[in-house]
């Protein structure tokens, strides 16, 4: 299953589009923790990954580098909070944004057959591997092509109307992933 996050952005109201422009999501591998066991070896491995991949800030609305289209860039897998927002506000905002990916009109469901290849633009589309086949087999191979830095849109709502409460944990590369405007 695939979803166009361009369509997901377009489907938001003007007010919401304006509000989320310039916000930054905190992306973390923390939700992958359940993939690791409690053994010392696994805990060490997890720690190593956490050191290799610290939380990153990415714009909530990114600009596709080729088409120039605006894309909603949050996901329930990695986006744990909105930088600079109260934690409850952040959760309340992320919920409807995550929900945009669930709108059937924005999705495409691929029927896989032997020798099917799917190639998606990870800058504008998200994917979901449906677990509807097990214990049938799923054999596939994948390659991934390196991308570039993420560019966001500037803030559209008046500055200074929100109090900063929830900030990224110490050590987060604040403008590491993208060029702020």
């Amino acid at each position, binding site marked *: 299953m*695939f979803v*166009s*996050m*361009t369509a997901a952005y*377009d489907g938001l109201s003007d007010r919401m*589009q304006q509000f989320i422009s310039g916000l930054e999501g905190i*992306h973390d591998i923390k939700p992958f923790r359940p*993939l690791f066991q409690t053994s010392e070896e696994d805990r060490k491995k997890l720690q190593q*990954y956490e050191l*290799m*991949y610290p*939380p*990153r800030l*990415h714009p909530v609305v990114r600009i596709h580098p080729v*088409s120039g*289209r*605006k894309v909603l*860039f949050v*996901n*329930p*897998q*990695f986006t744990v909070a909105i930088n600079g927002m109260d934690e409850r506000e952040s959760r309340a905002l992320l919920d409807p944004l995550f929900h945009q990916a*669930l709108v059937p*009109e*924005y999705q*495409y469901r*691929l029927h896989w*057959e*032997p*020798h*099917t*290849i*799917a*190639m*998606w*633009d*990870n*800058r*504008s*589309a998200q*994917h*979901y*591997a*449906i677990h509807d086949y*097990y*214990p049938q*087999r*799923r*054999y*596939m*191979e*994948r*390659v*991934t*092509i*390196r*991308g*570039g*830095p993420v560019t966001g849109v500037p803030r559209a709502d008046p500055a200074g109307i929100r109090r900063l409460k929830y900030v990224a944990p110490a050590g987060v590369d604040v403008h590491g*992933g993208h060029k702020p405007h």
Partner: protein
Amino acid sequence: MNEPFEFNQGKPISATTAGVTVAKVGVHLGAEISGVDLRRPLSNEQFKALDDALVEHELIIFRNQDITSENLIEFGRRFGELTVHPFAPNEANAPELIKFRNDEKTPPFGTDVWRPFYAQRKFQPSVVTPCSSA
């Protein structure tokens, strides 16, 4: 709102460029590609047609491509440098190739969640190409 995508203006549902036919299959994303054999290297014109289709349609689908792992790697490299996943199951002699073998002994792990790949990374991958094998 994004302006209507200029590529789409007045464009038919199916179009052929450099022998590559792109047929729209979804409303907001998805197009099926025909007229190209991925066992052979892509010409510059074919590559351009596929690259444009990918940006415009966000997801492109190829059917009946009985290709090898090497063909898949070569195809991917045409679009850019390949990345190595930190912990997905991969090939020892081709670490950029991820192999999923979900069967009765190895059930799938938490892939049933919406995401782009590697959103926690500083530099984001641009394109992902899985290929189902027989």
